């Protein structure tokens, strides 16, 4: 479904990402781990056509992301606060994002209703603008907005960050449920090895921009990862 060919990106002479080939199959949740500067965010940004690749290409369903825009209809994403419009209230933000994804007002209401448990009553109806929300609630808002419009692929960069423990386990459940019931493929990066081993079917370890390990998640995956990152 996603095919990366000969992808390279460097900043002032230093290669930050170099992936000769990588394909991600439909229905297989894909986890990305690696230390700071390993190239996780760079890879996601290239995938979303937010930065220009020096070389190579990313294809989603056979379309080069830098040359076409159709793939945007199949993909939802939340990388960081650069995706939030901070002077809107969460309701207005969901409405705007929903409309860009072609949802009707009724669709949006139904969607928000389904997210109530994840929001834990802290996002909607509080008469606050997004900029007045806590980091955790901003994170919830961004993740939820990415999930709008039934995308086939969901790209989340460190989604567990700043979430409280309860919401973290709710997010784990939400990801699993969405994968099972709607057939969504998640692409998730995280520093949290426990969570990523729990929700992903395949985990790629990046080291200095290159694929260091490519693991199909099994019983001993967590131990393998812990051993890899242990010093």
């Amino acid at each position: 479904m996603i095919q990366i060919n000969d992808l390279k990106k460097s900043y002032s002479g230093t290669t930050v990402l170099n992936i000769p080939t990588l394909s991600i199959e439909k229905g297989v949740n894909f986890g990305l781990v690696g230390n700071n500067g390993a190239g996780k965010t760079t890879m996601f940004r290239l995938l979303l056509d937010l930065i220009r690749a020096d070389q190579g290409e990313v294809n989603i369903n056979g379309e080069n992301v830098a040359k076409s825009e159709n793939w945007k209809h199949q993909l939802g994403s939340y990388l960081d606060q650069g995706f939030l419009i901070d002077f809107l209230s969460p309701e207005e933000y969901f409405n705007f994002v929903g409309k860009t994804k072609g949802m009707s007002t009724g669709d949006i209401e139904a969607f928000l209703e389904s997210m109530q448990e994840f929001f834990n009553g802290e996002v909607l109806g509080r008469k606050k603008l997004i900029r007045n929300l806590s980091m955790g609630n901003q994170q919830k808002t961004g993740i939820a907005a990415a999930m709008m419009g039934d995308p086939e692929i969901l790209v989340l960069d460190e989604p567990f960050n700043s979430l409280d423990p309860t919401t973290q386990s709710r997010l784990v459940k939400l990801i699993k449920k969405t994968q099972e019931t709607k057939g969504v493929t998640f692409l998730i990066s995280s520093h949290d090895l426990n969570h990523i081993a729990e929700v992903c079917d395949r985990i790629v370890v990046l080291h200095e921009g290159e694929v260091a390990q490519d693991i199909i998640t099994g019983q001993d995956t967590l131990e393998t990862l812990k051993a890899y990152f242990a010093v």
Partner: protein
Amino acid sequence: MLAFQFINHQIKQARRSTIWQKSLALNILLIFVAFILLAEAVGLSLLLAFSWHEIVKESEVLTSFYQLTAWYFVGSFVIRFFMQQLPALEIRHYQSFPIKKSTLIHFMLIKGKFNFFTLISLILFTPFAFKQIGYYEGTTAAWIWLAGVMFFDLTINYLVIWLKKLMVTNLKTVSLVLGFIGLLVLGEYLGWYVYSELFAGFITAMMENKILWLIPLITFMLVYLINYRFLLDKLYLEELSKAKTDKATGSRFGYLQRYGMIGEIMLLDIKLYLRNKRTKSILFLAPIFLAYGLIFYPNETYSRDGGFMIFVGIFISGFLILNYLQYAFANEGSYWDLIISSRIPKRQYVRAKLITGTAVVVISWFLALPYLYFGQSILIINTATALFNMGLLAPIALYFASYNKKALVLSKGSAFNYQGTSGMHWLITLPAFALPILIYMPFKWFDNPELGVLVIGASGLLGLLLRPAFVKLIENNLEDRKYQMAEGFREKN
């Protein structure tokens, strides 16, 4: 030394921003303009110093210069008020370290002392002090006089800083300041009192009774203190205002949503303008620019068919859209990644911006209709310039908007955040204002100014007809530049 550390950080911040590195040409242009201005100031100061006594009557060489100084300060005040960049230091970075608040504030304030306008004053007054005042009154008096006027200058400097900081929270000050200056001018005009003579009288008294020069020193210290107290207070308010919830305004425009994606984008821009301090202050300034005509229309000395009236017309309906469109993308810099990764078609996005711009011009044109009172020709000029603004100025401004790669920080309700406000904006703006005058001038020279006005209006209409082509052009340029813009926007200040 802490101060050196701060200065070091400031220089690094400026040098390492993408704006500095990537638009070297613009920086060179700015430095060039600054250099020219300084050279002109030096020339003028030497001219004043060496031949002032030949320009005015023998008996009142100094008094007449003092009167000139009086108006210089008023002018300097106004120019500073609109152009001067406020000293800023990102306090947040330093707040958690064991640095005294007072040190931070003093550093910020003293940094504000070293600016272009103060330098100009120093250049203008120094030669005069020693050449003319030294000649008539002696060198000691020259020193005292120079110190006196420079303290006046600094008083104005800090007064402007204080007022501008107030303005962010309280826009009544703008009208108060303008009212005060209006009163000054009007009073002298109607002969109630002569401000410049009063001022000159004070300076003369200061020269005779040296103790009086303490007055400018004291006013300076007073204004500095007011600034200091104000900022000290704000450091606390800062924390309070974070907890305060902003009110959601702009929901009344909900009907725009009926117009599909374009309506959504327009609605988003309206909310952006109403909910952010920075954009709100532009909206508050807008009526002042609408009233710009009042300064020129009643005055018979400005010829009605002159190029100047065209400039006024462009300004009346163009000020707001120039600001809006030039920063159309930079305003959205904080969520640019969302915009370019969203499914919003670029063409609709560009069209929405232009439609909003057009609507603003139409509204300004309607609001300016009462100028008909000053004659039909005014109305014709304003209509022609409004068409020009819609048809040409709007797409040109939006095209160049993609070269603003610095995200405007709109939402930080911070009294210490004045990022991106400077005279540079006008440097880009001026050519846009000059274009209609360039179109008009040849017709004026060949004695057919009416036709010139018609051609301006016609070129605007042509621009409106060609709008689809402009949209395509802007869209392609945006597509080309989106990565560079995204990179610049990600760099948070």
